[in-house]
């Protein structure tokens, strides 16, 4: 019976009981089953996406000025500074968690990899699509295909080339395995072909993965280098030669927050058991990334001689302290959660440090950017709606993907539960033998109690 299985955990965790009493071990990605794809929340997301799509076509006709709050002083609005600069950093899980798992050999983190890869792909895809809406002359983007036309030392060229190459080649290929897996399970006749593709993919995998770490390291740092050319127009608390390094660092700890935090949230929503061993490891890495990052941040401020600016009574000092306190307190909560094993502490730690990191990534381009005495920028309603719509597309796609493909980690028992669930709910599967998941072929467990 399932109760004898050490891997099995109750599907719900009472809030009053500390989570770590359950010896749950994530071993396998299992699709979310038993929950409908179309929910009220999903419909709201689709509605937002549709509104954004309609407004985008309006923007394409009338231009940027009538639709956005951007102006001659603030040439960049939230589409670039939030949806691209901030959200691709938050969605850099494929980069940061991947390096921890594949390069530094944190083997247990492999269970989070599919979440990391999916969130990264969606963050980058939505960000790049919105970038296409944001730029004024997107039809000239084909120049990205001609390297002799790149201005190689421009941070912008670096971002434009690296980001599009990364999202369309290594990140895309890294996300193929769950799709192939689904095809493999779907129909036995497809298996030889699927296996052939998988074989080829696995052969090139080290080269793809390495590229998937090199390129984000390059473009996430170049996103920081973008503001170096703005010189004194970026407040001294932010402007520093360390900006590229700090931008990569922020992407690293924020993306851990994104991957581990959203995995925890998914487990809560879809009633999955949590593997505290994996989550503890992620929290420990995140906490030390945060403290290391804060040390470099303070060093950058000191070297720049801007420490006194932090103690002025103005909004820049305020933003600086809000950032530092959010990030630092988040890191401290993560360390606390390693001792107390409280879900709430750990989740809040991820949430606070992510919000702080987002604020940090947002400041140099917007909040701490001082282009002139009377310069002011506030996003217009349409601009906000489009930005929200592109985030909504990402979340909606995520909700569909975790239900169609094996993304979320779970104990092995959950895979068997899924098979049992579908066999019970959809009897035609046993007649036709055609089923997305749970069709085990020859290796169907023979244990009659299952």
């Amino acid at each position, binding site marked *: 019976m399932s109760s004898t299985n050490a891997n099995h955990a109750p599907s719900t965790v009472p809030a009053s009981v500390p989570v770590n009493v359950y010896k749950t071990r994530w071993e396998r990605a299992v699709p979310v089953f038993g929950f409908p794809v179309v929910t009220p929340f999903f419909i709201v997301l689709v509605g937002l996406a549709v509104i954004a799509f309609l407004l985008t076509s309006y923007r394409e006709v009338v231009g940027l000025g009538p639709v956005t709050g951007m*102006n001659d002083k603030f040439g*960049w609005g939230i589409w670039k500074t939030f949806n691209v600069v901030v959200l691709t950093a938050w969605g850099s899980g494929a980069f940061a968690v991947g390096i921890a798992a594949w390069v530094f050999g944190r083997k247990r983190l492999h269970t989070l990899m599919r979440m990391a890869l999916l969130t990264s792909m969606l963050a980058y895809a939505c960000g790049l699509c919105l970038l296409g809406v944001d730029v*004024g002359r997107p039809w000239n983007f084909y120049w990205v295909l001609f390297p002799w036309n790149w201005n190689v030392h421009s941070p912008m060229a670096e971002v434009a080339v690296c980001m599009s190459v990364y999202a369309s080649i290594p990140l895309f290929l890294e996300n193929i*395995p769950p799709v192939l897996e689904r095809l493999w399970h779907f129909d036995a006749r497809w298996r030889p072909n699927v296996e052939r593709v998988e074989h080829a993919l696995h052969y090139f995998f080290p080269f793809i993965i390495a590229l998937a770490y090199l390129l984000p390291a390059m473009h996430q740092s170049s996103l920081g280098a973008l503001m170096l050319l703005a010189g004194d127009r970026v407040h001294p608390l932010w402007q520093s030669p360390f900006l590229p390094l700090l931008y990569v660092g922020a992407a690293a700890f924020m993306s851990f927050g994104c991957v581990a935090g959203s995995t925890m949230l998914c487990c809560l929503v879809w009633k999955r058991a949590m593997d505290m061993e994996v989550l503890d490891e992620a929290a420990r890495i995140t906490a030390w990334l945060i403290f290391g990052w804060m040390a470099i941040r303070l060093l950058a401020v000191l070297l720049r001689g801007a420490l006194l600016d932090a103690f002025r009574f103005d909004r820049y000092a305020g933003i600086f302290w809000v950032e530092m306190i959010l990030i630092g307190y988040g890191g401290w909560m993560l360390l606390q959660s390693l001792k107390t094993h409280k879900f709430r502490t750990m989740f809040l730690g991820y949430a606070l440090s992510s919000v702080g990191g987002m604020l940090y990534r947002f400041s140099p381009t917007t909040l701490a950017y001082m282009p002139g005495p009377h310069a002011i920028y506030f996003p217009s309603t349409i601009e906000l709606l489009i930005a929200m719509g592109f985030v909504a597309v990402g979340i909606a796609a995520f909700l569909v993907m975790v239900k169609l493909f094996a993304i979320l980690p779970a104990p*092995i028992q959950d895979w068997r539960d899924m098979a049992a669930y579908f066999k019970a709910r959809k009897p035609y599967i046993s007649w036709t033998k055609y089923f997305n998941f749970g069709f085990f072929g020859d290796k169907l467990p023979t244990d009659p109690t299952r």
Partner: protein
Amino acid sequence: MAITRRELITNIGKAGVPVAVAMTMSTVGAGTLQAEEVPVPSAPVGLLYDASLCIGCKACESACNAANDTPPDTSGDGLHQAPIDLNVFTRNIIKLYKPEDGSASSFVKRQCMHCFDPGCVAGCPFEALYKDEDTGAVRWDGGKCIGCRYCTISCPYSVPRFQWAGINPVITKCELCSHRLVKGLKPGCTSVCPVGAVIFGPRTVLLLEAKRRIKNNPGRYYQDRVYGETDNGGTQCLYLSKVPFEKLGLPELGPESVPSKSLRWQKRIYSYFALPALLYAGLVTVIRKNVKGHEQEAHEQEKETGLRAQL
């Protein structure tokens, strides 16, 4: 013992490590990296604007509009051409600095400075903004511009302007009337100035003229200095003024250009692409080993559980 193909490739790769490091390090010691990489125009021309002579008649503004075929900006009251700042119709503008304490006031003419090492050109991803090889004018190529508006941020003088309305937006900035120069005509603004406050000529001649004025009028000019002689690595448009340059919107940027100051490490790290290539090779080596181990574990688990391995 025969060398296998794998060994050969590995050894070549190992030999590449010191080469890559050397290629990167070779640029660290070099102080004049910028001078080597930014080509100097063969015959730089420019403007000399003497703010102490300008009477603020704004004839140059409308001459600029006429020369560039842009409509006058009457957005203020619908009657007068009175732009507040440079904008998509206005490549050249006269502003007034008038301090409230009644000390010396001054007009100032703002347009592109045509830097020797322009921030906008350094930042432009696909070389849509470029420096003319002969005249050194900073020009814009609409066939390459993606409209990212990075030039509006990377220009230390905040000159380039993006057209906010319309389906085919352009970047507008003073191009030193390059279309007139090829016909042997002077830029629009210099052809109408009634007092000779702005003159056109080869930069060397303009610089001599500016220094002559400083010499002949001791104490007249701020710091007895020509703005643009060395500022931001040297600009082709030169300024003389009675009031501090910063009051006229010309920031003190120092003799080193903004791109060479701020992108120094960017350039070193990416020189010859040696360091990224080295990093990539290292990553592949480590990951290959780890992928093998991971696959093995996955297949063992597959045998154990009877469920297909997930990689």
